[in-house]
């Protein structure tokens, strides 16, 4: 599964964000949003297509790109879940540490207890 490497690239992440925010867009409109050359953008779109992260539809002379939400699902669920769990854990640890430091501060000299 090369979904992960496909979104590891910042330009490709920007393309996905753009499609997420604006909906389906023709290749030319996507290319206009970037400083890099249109062929370079095309290459990124190809990578995203091969990773099944975007789908393309030919309409007259245009190629319209949109996000493939189905393929994003696994990655989103996994990374989202892990990030959320770890954030919760870290936040909870923060609270415990604050409480423990408070406890330690009581009974020690004011100097040692004073905040920086």
């Amino acid at each position: 599964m090369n979904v992960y490497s496909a979104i590891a690239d910042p330009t490709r992440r920007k393309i996905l964000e753009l499609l997420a925010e604006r909906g389906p867009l023709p290749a030319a409109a996507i290319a206009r949003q970037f400083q890099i050359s249109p062929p370079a953008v095309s290459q990124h779109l190809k990578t995203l297509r091969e990773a099944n992260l975007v789908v393309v539809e030919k309409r007259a002379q245009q190629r319209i790109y949109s996000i493939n939400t189905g393929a994003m699902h696994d990655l989103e669920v996994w990374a989202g879940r892990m990030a959320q769990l770890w954030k919760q854990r870290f936040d909870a640890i923060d609270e415990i540490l604050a409480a423990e430091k408070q406890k330690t501060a009581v009974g020690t000299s004011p100097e040692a207890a004073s905040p920086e």
Partner: protein
Amino acid sequence: MNSGTSNLVINEELREIIMTRTFDAPRELVYRVWTDVQYIPRWWGPREYKTVVEKNDVQPGGLWRFIQYDPKSNEFAFNGEYRLVEPPEKLVYTFDYEGNPGHIIVETVTFEEKDGQTIVTSIDRFQTMDDLHGMLEAGMEKGATDSYERLTELLREVQRVR
């Protein structure tokens, strides 16, 4: 590197996800909160779940088993084995969800002290991509949504491993 911010990194080839966080506390204390059964139920599980530590033998080869109860009293058990214990610097242990056993994750946690703060880095490594998918299918489908908003959020969180 502010205290309170976490960072998520996904590394596909190594099948790892890496989380870091800086805590405003000395390393010994952070390590103690991480390993002491007195503290584990207060941080390990999701907030709305109750976590019970059945055992936690923090030494190489020592076993751990934690049980979570959701608000409806459904039970979810997890277990593993400590592989490396170097207080207060490093821990390596396995992680297996008993609801879908055999998809073992190896978790490596390092505690690094810097200017009185502690940087914790946790690396979750799946044995295979199949294990990753097995984990996904393990009935933890909470939060499954294809909303564009969440997708955008996720993309901002994901960063390349150098």
